[in-house]
């Protein structure tokens, strides 16, 4: 399978990336990592993602996504015919409730591609 993995700079997303890499190795999946950032720090985020991929010793294409990350991820998945979008799921509120940010919400609602949410 060809996977499009959406990653922002959060520790949760980078941790999720490790899980994806593990599974992709076992399954022989092909990975593209789409880096996005909610605060214009996409270059720094890309750096962190490349570092993490190097540590994990894995071959993956890295792309950066600007503008509205949600709609760009959906579009990219459709135009480049990916089999699946993978995202890491949400923040936790002070008392432990899961909250999805607008990127995750947009992708879940609008993607025609299958979406996996890592929790």
């Amino acid at each position, binding site marked *: 399978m060809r996977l499009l993995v959406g990653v922002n700079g959060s520790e949760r997303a980078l941790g999720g990336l490790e899980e994806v890499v593990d599974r992709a190795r076992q399954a022989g999946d092909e990975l593209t990592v789409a880096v996005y950032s909610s605060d214009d720090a996409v270059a720094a985020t890309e750096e962190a993602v490349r570092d993490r991929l190097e540590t994990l010793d894995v071959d993956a294409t890295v792309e950066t996504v600007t503008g509205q990350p949600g709609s760009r991820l959906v579009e990219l998945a459709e135009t480049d015919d990916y089999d699946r979008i993978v995202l890491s799921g949400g*923040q936790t*509120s*002070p*008392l*432990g*409730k*899961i*909250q*999805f940010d*607008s990127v995750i*919400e947009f992708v879940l609602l609008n993607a025609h591609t299958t979406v996996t949410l890592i929790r």
Partner: protein
Amino acid sequence: MTVRFPEDTVDGFPTPPRTVTDADGREIRLCEVTYDDSDALTAMYLDFDPEDRAQGIPPGDEDSIREWLEVVMTGEALNTVAYHDESPVGHVMLVPDGDGSYELAIFVLQAYQGAGIGTALVRTALGLGQREGIQRIWLTVERWNRPAIGLYEKIGFERTGDDSFELEMSLRLEPVE
């Protein structure tokens, strides 16, 4: 996340401990509790119907429940429990968010829902918060959960969040003299 709060304050909440009679005639005791009481609450949450989970909480297994209760019952958090025959049947937590505001959540065992306990419990927890000097309280609720949204509105919460999966509501307490 940044929460907006209404300018108008809300007042008139009762403080714990107090006893109410629910719509089914059951005597329900509402008390402030601390982390020392977490064993009884762990037992309550083990009985909790997964159908009544909200945004991933309460967790399902005992270890995760204990871990979660430690988060919501220690530090500056304020906890109010509804007891029936000495057993907890409902729980409201107010947990500091690091911004000087508090996040609220409530859970009531299925057999005790729909009898007015939730409303009494939230109002009593707000009275406790007011007594402890808290002013800004917020919560999130799933958009499809209309009974809960109606309950919070009746108590004085206003919808303040933008449109997303969860509806954000908040309330400003009248400061105590």
